[in-house]
């Protein structure tokens, strides 16, 4: 929202010594965030303690850029396309400026002008924008001969002043703009201005106008607020009986008002109005349209002007007695062409302003093409109405259109404002359009809001704010915002003014008022305290603590944490299953976005694996070694439930060299393989003190057959780990020939068994006996089984079993392998001797023979 300070000053006397930057800061702190300050010709102020972005706007030199009065226009003796403007600029003598401005040619050689022309006048040394440059470029005005006449001053175009891109002619100022100013007045004092760009939160709908902002300023600075005049000179015949209003649904249309202005002349608006509209970001069109916009910007009440002759003709053609405006919901299949030319098949809730002949406009949002004011319209039927903000919002969403009016109505405008806006606009149309106003207003007001009254105990204000406000202080602040306040013994009775809809009743209204009190009082004046309220029961979050524990263990194992988008596409996850293979991913539907913002983010993920492979592919373009993990949810719809399950997963990815290279140790040959991955998983499980863990061969579409294991914890499946299938790697654009280890584990299944209270074994006091044992078994025998047999046979004295070599080849027979173990025997209470250990060893060998067909390798 763009608010010119000059316009605000119509309604509130901002102290002359208050820099606009300070005013902007006060507004920002009070919730009207000034996002930008636009300066027009005037310098920026530097206020201690207030930081503002530097502005590169053109500052009009107070001595060199002034108001000029052109008293005569003479022909140039040497050039047909140039004229000489004789300018009174307040100096001792008149100045002659050579100019090619086409808008002065009509005055050429007509002698001293009866009505002088006013224009911005710049003297030698003044800084201006270069009017002839296509790019913004500054220049310093220098004296020089122009076709034989020395010229050291100029009358300026809007472009040269930085007001617009218009360089077709010089800027001529209308009398109203220069009234009271003598030639030579610094131009800053005539046209200089500052425009505040304010961002409003939805609750500040009431401040979405010049008057609304002026009201906030008046409250903040404790100043008097003036309101726009509402007197209208109505000298025409009564409007009553000439037009009717039928409201079919007061909930959606609480109020509808009309005036009639006859005999107007459509023409450009006066310059002061055009300038204000442009500063506020609107394009001037003609006086009638401009007035509806101007009054909307000023009061916040949108208006709509109909061509009365078209309305009358439609009434006659449809056989109506008098024209009747009907607000109603559309007929099935009804459509409407709006004034922007768009055609709309209407939805059942799209409220219409219609007459007996059909739809006229989309209520509160945009007028229809047919009844729009035309350049030759003579008579204007002016509407100011009020609409249900929720229905306006729904309609804008469903019709996918927006408008200045619709945006204001969709945030809520108080119905009382309809008459305020209507009167202000009607009088402006009479004055600026030259018409006659029919006497009276047609006002159909079926749903007049109840006055909102809130009882506000002082104790309640103190309870919420923690500050010792007095009733008098509270009352004073609320009155500054135009609330009606009665003071009672036990508190205040507050009546909400009829420009705001944001104050509720009861305890909600109290909260609404407390916000207003603290906001105007100033948050910066509220002290800081330490909570002295009862400390609630303290609850740990075991799930989070264990998750962070797992993260620490994985980081300790040298893995980097990544966090991926949880949005993906089914197509990307489908790449995890090579063509022809059976998918091993969850066989449920996806949580699917109804309004995806991009093609690559349409559903919530089922797996972490696709994201990890994508990260790997991107990083392998510049890095050769990857050790990654991600912890996060996947999203699995549950049949019969609206909301999906969101189980936590742990994803792992290892690829590239196992070790990092250094200057004297080149990276060792070894690339990450299955056992590196398994080692990470084991380290994690060990660190979490998860017991009863098993790894078993499994198959999975995404993984290399025969290099894939399923993890089970306490018999419960806890995910899969292995080498990625080469076809999957190709599908994810990973380099050929580089094995990638992948795992996706069910974090809940693991962390459920994490043990913060694991029992610690005493440090041994007795020496151990170490023995090596190599067993030859068939190749198919899993190592885990061999170890299990050794442990079972070794019993309690066998403290540790560590596999240190796996060997195949000569002299081991084909189809067999040798597994070499380092065994540690220890008794807790005595020194073991060779004797019992040798017996145990024989027992182990025998068990291995019997259970696994193993032979001792001598």
């Amino acid at each position: 929202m763009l608010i010119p300070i000059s316009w605000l000053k119509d309604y509130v006397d901002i102290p002359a010594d208050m820099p606009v930057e300070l005013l902007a800061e006060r507004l920002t702190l009070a919730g009207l965030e000034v996002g930008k300050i636009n300066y027009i010709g005037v310098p920026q102020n530097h206020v201690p303690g207030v930081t503002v972005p530097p502005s590169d706007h053109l500052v009009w030199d107070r001595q060199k850029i002034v108001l000029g009065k052109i008293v005569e226009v003479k022909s140039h003796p040497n050039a047909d396309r140039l004229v000489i403007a004789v300018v009174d600029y307040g100096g001792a003598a008149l100045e002659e400026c050579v100019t090619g401005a086409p808008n002065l040619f009509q005055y050429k050689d007509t002698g001293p002008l009866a009505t002088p022309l006013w224009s911005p006048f710049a003297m030698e040394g003044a800084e201006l924008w270069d009017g002839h440059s296509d790019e913004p470029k500054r220049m310093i005005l220098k004296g020089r001969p122009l076709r034989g006449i020395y010229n050291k001053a100029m009358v300026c175009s809007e472009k040269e002043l930085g007001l617009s891109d218009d360089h077709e002619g010089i800027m001529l100022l209308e009398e109203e703009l220069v009234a009271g100013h003598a030639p030579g007045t610094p131009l800053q004092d005539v046209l200089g201005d500052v425009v505040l760009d304010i961002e409003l939160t939805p609750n500040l709908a009431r401040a979405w106008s010049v008057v609304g902002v002026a009201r906030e300023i008046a409250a903040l600075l404790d100043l008097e607020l003036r309101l726009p005049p509402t007197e209208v000179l109505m000298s025409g015949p009564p409007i009553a009986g000439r037009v009717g209003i039928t409201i079919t649904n007061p909930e959606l249309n609480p109020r509808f008002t009309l005036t009639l202005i006859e005999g107007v002349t459509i023409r450009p608006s006066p310059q002061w109005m055009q300038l204000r509209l442009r500063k506020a970001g609107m394009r001037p069109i003609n006086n009638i349209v401009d007035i509806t916009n101007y009054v909307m910007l000023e009061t916040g009440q949108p208006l709509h002007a109909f061509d009365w002759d078209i309305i009358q003709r439609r009434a006659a053609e449809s056989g109506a007695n008098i024209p009747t405006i009907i607000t109603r919901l559309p007929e099935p299949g009804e459509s409407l062409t709006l004034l922007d030319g768009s055609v709309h098949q209407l939805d059942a809730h799209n409220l219409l302003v219609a007459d007996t002949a059909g739809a006229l406009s989309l209520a509160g949002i945009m007028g229809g093409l047919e009844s729009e004011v035309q350049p030759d319209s003579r008579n204007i039927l002016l509407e100011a109405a009020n609409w249900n903000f929720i229905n306006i919002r729904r309609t804008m969403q469903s019709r996918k259109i927006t408008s200045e009016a619709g945006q204001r109505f969709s945030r809520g405008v108080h119905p009382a404002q309809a008459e305020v806006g209507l009167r202000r606009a009607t009088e402006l149309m009479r004055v600026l359009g030259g018409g006659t106003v029919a006497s009276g207003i047609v006002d159909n007001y079926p749903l007049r809001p109840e006055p909102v009254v809130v009882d506000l105990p002082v104790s309640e204000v103190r309870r919420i704010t923690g500050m010792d406000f007095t009733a008098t202080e509270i009352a004073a602040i609320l009155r500054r915002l135009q609330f009606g306040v009665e003071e009672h013994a036990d508190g205040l009775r507050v009546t909400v003014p009829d420009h705001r809809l944001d104050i509720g009743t009861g305890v909600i209204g109290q909260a609404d008022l407390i916000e207003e009190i603290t906001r105007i009082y100033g948050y910066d004046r509220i002290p800081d305290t330490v909570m002295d309220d009862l400390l609630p029961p303290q609850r740990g979050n075991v799930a989070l603590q264990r998750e962070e524990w797992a993260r620490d263990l994985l980081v300790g194992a040298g893995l980097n944490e990544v966090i991926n988008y949880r949005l993906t596409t089914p197509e990307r996850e489908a790449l995890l299953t090579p063509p022809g293979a059976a998918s091993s991913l969850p066989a449920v539907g996806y949580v699917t976005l109804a309004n995806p913002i991009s093609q690559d983010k349409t559903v919530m993920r089922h797996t972490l694996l696709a994201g990890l492979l994508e990260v790997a592919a991107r990083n392998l373009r510049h890095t050769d070694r990857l050790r990654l993990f991600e912890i996060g949810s996947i999203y699995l719809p549950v049949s019969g439930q609206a909301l999906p399950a969101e189980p936590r997963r742990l994803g792992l990815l290892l690829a590239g060299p196992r070790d990092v290279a250094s200057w004297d140790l080149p990276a060792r040959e070894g690339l990450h393989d299955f056992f590196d991955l398994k080692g990470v998983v084991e380290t994690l499980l060990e660190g979490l003190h998860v017991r009863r863990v098993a790894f078993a061969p499994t198959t999975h579409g995404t993984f290399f057959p025969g290099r894939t294991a399923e993890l089970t914890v306490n018999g419960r499946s806890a995910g899969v780990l292995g080498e990625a299938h080469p076809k999957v790697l190709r599908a994810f654009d990973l380099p050929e020939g580089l094995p990638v280890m992948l795992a996706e584990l069910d974090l809940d299944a693991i962390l459920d068994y994490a043990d913060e209270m694991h029992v610690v074994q005493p440090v041994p006091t007795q020496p151990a006996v170490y023995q090596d044992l190599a067993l030859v078994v068939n190749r198919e025998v899993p190592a885990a089984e061999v170890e299990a047999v050794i442990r079972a046979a070794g019993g309690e004295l066998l403290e540790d079993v560590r596999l240190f070599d796996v060997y195949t080849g000569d002299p081991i027979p084909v189809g067999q392998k040798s597994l070499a173990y380092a065994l540690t025997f220890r008794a807790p209470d005595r020194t073991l001797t060779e004797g019992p250990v040798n017996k145990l060893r024989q027992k182990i060998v025998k068990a291995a023979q019997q259970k696994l067909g193993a032979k001792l390798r001598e």
Partner: protein
Amino acid sequence: MTMLDRLETLYQQASAELAQIASSEALADWERRVIGRKGEVTLLLRQTGQLPPEERAAFGKRANEIKALLSEAFARREEEIREQELARSMEEGQVDVTLPGRKVARGRLHPATQTLREVYAIWAEMGFQVYRSRDVETDEVNFGLLNMPPYHPARDMWDTFYTTEPGVILRTHTSPGQIHAMREYGENGTKPIRVILPGMCYRYEQITARSEVQFHQVEGLAIGRGIRMTDLKGTLTEFARRMYGAERRLRFRASHFPFTEPSAEVDVDCILCGGAGCNVCKYSGWLEIAGCGMVHPVVLRNGGYDPTVWSGFAFGMGPERITMLKHGIRDIRYFWGNDLRFLNQF
């Protein structure tokens, strides 16, 4: 030559030889040959019995003397040689200490996780514990119970991802956790609460250097019988000074959130320019770090509390934004880009 003469000759020769020895290998050899168990001195001593009885005592005494002298000389020489060899090895063993150290392949937490932990720790000390809730949420909890009925204008503040399941959305903020936490911990509005609610949030926004479709948020909620707006200011000020530095200045700006009232935005003076104005703070001198306010009576009521007795404050902040401010990161897309050249800087 008598045995005694041989002994004296041996003494002279061995002493002279010892003085010439320069390596520990030669020294060990000398020790073995001269004073070792099978060394010459030992062998001579063993031959004492072959002497006439009257010479034996004198010879034995002298032989033992000599053995002791040689042993002492050996120990001295050994020490000297050790010193020499140490000095030599130190001379030869010098390294170029400016060569780079060997890289340790350490792992790292994602910066977002690191910041979340920092946030958890600060709030934990003030009695706030972590409560987590779901990413895929109902419209009702995300908006409705937070005082935003359907078509409420404030819903425009959040660009929402809707799912094909009616009434189910991706949460746009962690505020729905307020409702869950109050209902779970409040025991029908009878118990005070202090929680922080971290989680991933989603917004229908184009991904740019400044906006993401997915980001973390940490919401905080304190409910009690005597929680005041002054507490909100004091508590958040304490947090900000712990997070951004003890010397930081804070500013509370009036704002609007449908689920708090009064509401405020919290700014700290710019970490980079100290308030003088720079392009990080967009020349305002301030950086927005949190939104906050007193819990709205409707929300208290929806959480099971009587708003005439209970009060509370809530706040929300973005860990990614905190990380960006602290480390001068200009592009939020780095976070989920997972480029190791970014992640390895933490």
